[in-house]
């Protein structure tokens, strides 16, 4: 592992473990050292069951490591209490999931604005920023639609808009193209390329080498350990 020139990496994991107590105990993540610098586009690729999602949950502060050190934007997250972790998560992390996770009963615009509710952005500002984010992913004409009326690709773009709108330090995507046909997948990857060029830090988790290769840097994960 080489030293990084940038002052504070977005992600700094040292010896991180995540064991699920059994029986039988599952060592989903073992001794992971990972640094993601600002503006980096990283892919983590590995077969099913290798621990990708578990790692993403750890990166996204949705789960606590069993051991090790994890600093996000220089903040030691291991010592944080649940509330602080939730705030940090809301402010610094944007998630994109394989199955989109949009609320069916809310409009596209509301879905995007939702990601600023827990960060304390006033409602008016939320809606204005949500509109900008949707324009950015090319969905200005779908704002008042219900998510259920959109195509898979469109839904994922809504999810990306939602992840971006709170201006996170790190965009985490777990199999973002897993539910999409190749054309739609390509459109999503194009959005990622664009975000990368704009300076966003991205970590995309996938089992698909084709998706993985689009990233600036690739890391393999096998049986819960990273291989370089």
């Amino acid at each position: 592992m080489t030293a990084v020139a940038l002052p504070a990496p977005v992600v700094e994991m040292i010896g991180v473990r995540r064991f699920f107590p059994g029986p039988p105990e599952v060592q989903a993540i073992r001794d992971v050292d990972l640094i993601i610098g600002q503006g980096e586009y990283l892919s983590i690729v590995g077969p099913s069951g290798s621990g990708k999602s578990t790692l993403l949950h750890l990166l996204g502060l949705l789960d606590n490591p069993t051991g090790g050190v994890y600093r996000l934007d220089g903040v030691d997250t291991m010592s944080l209490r649940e509330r602080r972790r939730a705030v940090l998560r809301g402010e610094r992390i944007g998630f994109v999931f394989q199955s989109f996770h949009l609320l069916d009963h809310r409009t596209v615009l509301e879905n995007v604005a939702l990601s600023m509710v827990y960060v304390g952005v006033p409602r008016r500002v939320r809606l204005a920023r949500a509109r900008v984010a949707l324009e950015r992913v090319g969905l200005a004409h779908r704002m008042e639609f219900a998510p259920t009326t959109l195509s898979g690709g469109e839904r994922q773009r809504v999810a990306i808009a939602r992840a971006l709108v709170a201006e996170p330090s790190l965009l985490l995507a777990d199999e973002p193209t897993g539910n999409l046909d190749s054309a739609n997948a390509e459109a999503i990857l194009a959005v990622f390329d664009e975000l990368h060029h704009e300076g966003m830090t991205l970590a995309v988790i996938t089992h698909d080498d084709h998706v993985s290769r689009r990233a600036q840097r690739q890391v393999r994960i096998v049986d819960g350990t990273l291989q370089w």
Partner: protein
Amino acid sequence: MRDLLDEALAGVAARPTRLILTTLGTVLGIAALVGTVGLGQTAAGQITQRFDLAAATRIVVQPEDKGGQEGEAATQLPWDAPERIQRLNGVDAAGTVSNLDIGDDLVRNVAGVNGGEGKALQVMAASAGLFDAVRGVLGTGRFFDAGHDQRGDKVVVLGKHAAERLGINRVDAQPAVFIGDEPYTVIGILESVTGRAELNDAVIMPNGTAKTAYDLESPDAVEIRTQVGAAQLIAGQAPIAIQPNDPSTLKVDAPPKQGAVRKGVESDLNALFLLLGAVALLVGGLGIANVTLLSVLERISEIGLRRALGAARRHVAIQFLVESVIVGFLGGLLGTAVGVLLTVGVSWVRDWTPILDNRLAFGSPLLGAFIGLVAGTYPAWKASAIQPITALRGT
């Protein structure tokens, strides 16, 4: 906080059919409660309205058993009983009343057609104060006064129905009636009395007149009108005032205490309905708890998403809690409306004035909200305890 409320409202509004079904138990429970209490209050209000002033201030004193026993000197009310009563604090008016035995004599209108057809009418004797004591209202003319009484003037006042039967409706021409063969001048016609309804059908003459004409020895009863709230007190004092030597020989009819009236209204039926309402509320609460729990399970992925977006455990808990409070509140609101309609409807049919306590009308939706709060506590806690990684699994 405002945002959490918005989120909760949106969560509730997302499933309208379920919302209606969820509130059903609460609606029924609150409706039963509001309806029962409302109708209870309304009925109590009617009783109070109808009888309060009349019944709650009316006392009748009469001998325990007038002229019952042979030989034994039966208790007799003194003629001055009204004056004695009037000295008590809290008495507004008092007067004696007696039925006269006129045998087979009929009452005729002197100026009537065919010299007037004889009518079998009750003839009564009264003191001048009776008019006031029974809240008499005159249709025309006047009631006799103490002067008529003392002089034994041959005057009468007619009860409303008696006057109708005799065909007399004005007194300015000094009409006369025969009782048997004796003529009496009609000086007034009563429009109404309260309490002693038989006066409406009677021909009433002063005591002094009755003493001479019918050998009336003593009054049958004393009618007393008290000030509001004084009835109980006066009822205790009246026998002593009238008969200091032997008060126990007098029988006093006094209105029941306020509490007794109310108690009568809160009957077993009421208790049953209240119980049913409580059971319905319990069921309603369980229903809300159940459906909220179901909704938590259904929305696990939404919970995961919200956590991913920065929601802390308490945000999730508050959202579900607020949702069930809203459901409870809506149920309470609807139930109150139904209960009020029920009260108004029954009142309308019964021709009552619906009476509904404001506290009940405004408190019941809050009761619904409270039930929602209690019912939502466990599901909300459950929701907040769900691990985000569990909630987001399968992504």
